[in-house]
């Protein structure tokens, strides 16, 4: 019986915690990330399909769906709900575009007390900034390579 945690020595307790935190988390974390990430993607697809059903062209529908998910991420973050989801979902809440939105709102709220310009304003892109820097720079490198290839042909 491992219910007798209160009578354990320090060493025994350490062993108990190590054992508990060794086997379960990674599989459980991955399953939760899979589930939550998958569901957020389904929400995106549902919005896209609903708009296409209303005769909106596919490209606009996809763009609108992205905007909606960004709104959703920001909305849930500002009511302190996204971090609760993140506690369980891990990467499932970080990797979808709602997590990108969360990465903008969360530091903005945290630094709000330091003022609206140098607090809220400059910390909004604390994490999203690097994402844009590396994303856009990678696309620049790809563009140069693609341009050279089309020139040679």
């Amino acid at each position, binding site marked *: 019986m491992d219910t007798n945690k209160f009578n354990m020595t320090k060493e025994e307790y350490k062993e108990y915690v190590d054992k508990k935190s060794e086997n379960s988390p990674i599989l459980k974390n991955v399953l939760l990330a899979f589930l939550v990430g*998958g569901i957020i993607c389904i929400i*995106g*697809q549902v919005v896209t399909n609903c708009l296409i059903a209303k005769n909106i062209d596919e490209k606009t529908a996809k763009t609108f769906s992205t905007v909606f998910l960004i709104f959703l991420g920001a909305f849930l973050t*500002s*009511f302190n709900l996204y971090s609760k989801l993140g506690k369980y979902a891990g990467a499932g809440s970080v990797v979808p575009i709602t997590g990108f*939105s969360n990465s903008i709102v969360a530091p903005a709220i945290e630094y709000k007390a330091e003022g609206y310009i140098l607090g809220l304003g400059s910390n909004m892109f604390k994490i999203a900034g*690097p994402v844009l820097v590396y994303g856009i720079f990678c696309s620049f490198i790809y563009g140069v*390579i693609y341009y050279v290839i089309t020139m040679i042909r």
Partner: protein
Amino acid sequence: MLMEYLKVFLTGGIICSIAQVLIDKTKITPARILVLFVSLGVVFTGLGLYQHIVDFGKSGATVPISGFGYSLATGVKEAIDEKGFIGIFTGGVTATSAGIAAAVIFGFLGALIAKPKAK
């Protein structure tokens, strides 16, 4: 229809699972995961691989942040095909403009209405 949603779920789920394994096994921070995945999205799109994932998984491939890299790269490619050299600079951000603007606008509004939590 149901099959489509299953594919979306599987694709999105697998991409998030890969990130979770990286977080658990390497202690890589979520911020680095975002940067890594957006960059990988551009690279895999450039190699012509990500398009197959998008064709199969639709939103399952475009909603994760790697899909943001996919949008950047396909935007650059299309703009180069259309306008030539200047497309290298205009394509990426043009294709992702709605996402970036929405993130700024809703991010700002969200931060305005939220109360900072006491620590």
